[in-house]
């Protein structure tokens, strides 16, 4: 499926990702009010990954209704990503997303670079459990919780989401990182600190999924650095039941969805796997 924050701010882009073969779409993270995000530079390419600090730009839940309505009747599930300051904002947004036709919601409790949102609340297991419990009680659609690797113990947060009744956890969000230009001596991102994604972070995502899989029963959606069919196999073996693609679009463009599915099928054939379920958690003793 398409990860949140990539080609998913308007209905036209999301339709295009569906046509390109995404099995589900996670929308851009939407909040209560429109937010412009940070000034540029907001995204830069580094040697082994992509660094971004967008600052949660989004048109606000009210304006997003039109985009969601344009997607009604899509052949794949649309998962509404939402971010808020507290459980009442999250429940309001989740209910709105449900009423707009979202098939599930993903709670962004892990954005690494926006003040009073994301990681600032998502690092505390108590808050994560409270928000999840309240959202789950207010909507009938599945609730996913997206986790940050920027914590001492991601398993504790995953368990808190599970205790709150989450239907799945999504791991991982980006990793706090920074780039300084040594000629001017200035950080390049306008927010100085951002989140690192892309190829470099795959081993971290694999480790997080592997650790979580041993402690929680709900499905894990793996995300972080996937650019090939073999990367997906690795995430599945670590314990993921599904995966998301984000920065992979930079490395292999929008055709990545079809390409990696083909690569995965070919690999499974060569290695004599019949079914994806044989791969899930295969690395866990």
């Amino acid at each position, binding site marked *: 499926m398409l990860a949140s*924050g*990539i*080609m*998913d*701010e*308007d209905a*036209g*882009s*999301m*339709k*295009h*990702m569906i*046509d390109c073969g995404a099995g589900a779409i996670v929308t*851009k993270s939407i909040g209560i009010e*429109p*937010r*412009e*995000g940070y*000034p*540029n*530079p*907001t*995204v*830069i*390419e*580094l*040697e082994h990954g*992509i660094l*971004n600090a*967008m600052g949660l*730009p*989004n*048109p*606000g839940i009210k*304006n997003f209704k039109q985009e969601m309505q344009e997607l009604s009747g899509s052949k794949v599930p649309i998962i509404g990503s939402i971010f808020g300051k507290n459980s009442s904002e999250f429940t309001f947004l989740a209910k709105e997303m449900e009423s707009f036709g979202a098939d599930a919601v993903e709670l962004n409790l892990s954005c690494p670079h926006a003040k009073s949102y994301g990681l600032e609340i998502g690092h505390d297991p108590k808050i994560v459990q409270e928000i999840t419990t309240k959202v789950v009680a207010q909507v009938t659609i599945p609730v996913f919780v997206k986790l940050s690797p920027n914590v001492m113990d991601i398993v504790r947060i995953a368990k808190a989401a599970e205790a709150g009744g989450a239907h799945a956890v999504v791991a991982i969000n980006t990793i706090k990182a920074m780039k300084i*230009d040594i*000629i*001017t001596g*200035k950080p*390049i991102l*306008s927010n100085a600190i951002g989140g690192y994604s892309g190829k470099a972070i795959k081993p971290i995502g694999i480790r997080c999924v592997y650790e979580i899989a041993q402690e929680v029963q709900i499905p894990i959606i793996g995300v972080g650095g996937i650019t090939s069919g073999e990367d997906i196999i690795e995430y599945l073996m670590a314990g993921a039941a599904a995966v998301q693609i*984000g*920065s992979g*679009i*930079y490395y292999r*463009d*929008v055709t990545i969805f079809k390409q990696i599915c083909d690569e995965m099928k070919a690999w499974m054939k060569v290695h004599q796997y019949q079914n994806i379920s044989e791969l899930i958690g295969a690395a866990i003793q």
Partner: protein
Amino acid sequence: MINIQVTKVLEVQQETKTVKTLTFYHSEPVKPGQFYMVWIPGIDEIPMSVSIIHHDQKGITFRKVGIATEALFRMKPNDAIGIRGPFGSSLSLEGNHLFFVGGGTGIAMLAPAIEMAREQGKQVTVVLGAKTKSDLFFKNRIRNTGATLEIATDDGSQGFLGLASELAKQLLQQEDIDAIITCGPELMMKQLLDISKNIPFQASLERYLKCAIGLCGQCCIGEGLRVCKEGPIFNGKTLKNVKDFGKYRRDSAGRKIPL
């Protein structure tokens, strides 16, 4: 790959009261129509089409309209700027008689294509539109290529009195044209597309850009067409199916804003 190079401003050329050209060294090959993300350290990063291509020396030409361009406007030789790119699609120069229409600062990105077309021996007609005579720039640069230059000003202070698109309409009726290539205000480009009939058409679009590498979706038009990747140059066939063209753009928050 680390795709940001911090380089020094080489020369600054004042084109009008509010328009300047900066040149810098950047060895990556670039084609007319492509753009850079220009980082003004500590201030902003903005997309700028290439306006000068001379071996390793490249240039950008801009009007001061906001904080970022005002900071660029104050730059002197040896000041540091960061360059990402070049990004995006480039102009096709197919055809024997090419018709360029530049409105406002649009002529900046058309100039390297005009020079290239003339070097290839093509017949070139250029319509240059501006509000008033003192806003016109690159007149000599275009005349020096041997292209036919037609000028339109909104107040009639030089050349045709009226919009560039109105002058273009008259000329298109008189001349045999193989291709229309335009950059300028989107409503002007939309009018040109509407009168282009079957003549191959290319326009350079401008949208709020963030990543410039086809990821963030900020600049998408129509059904997932990225101005930074599939664009900024789009052909007429594509634009006829893009319902936002000439209608609205999206701001930094992703809200639709009528043009």
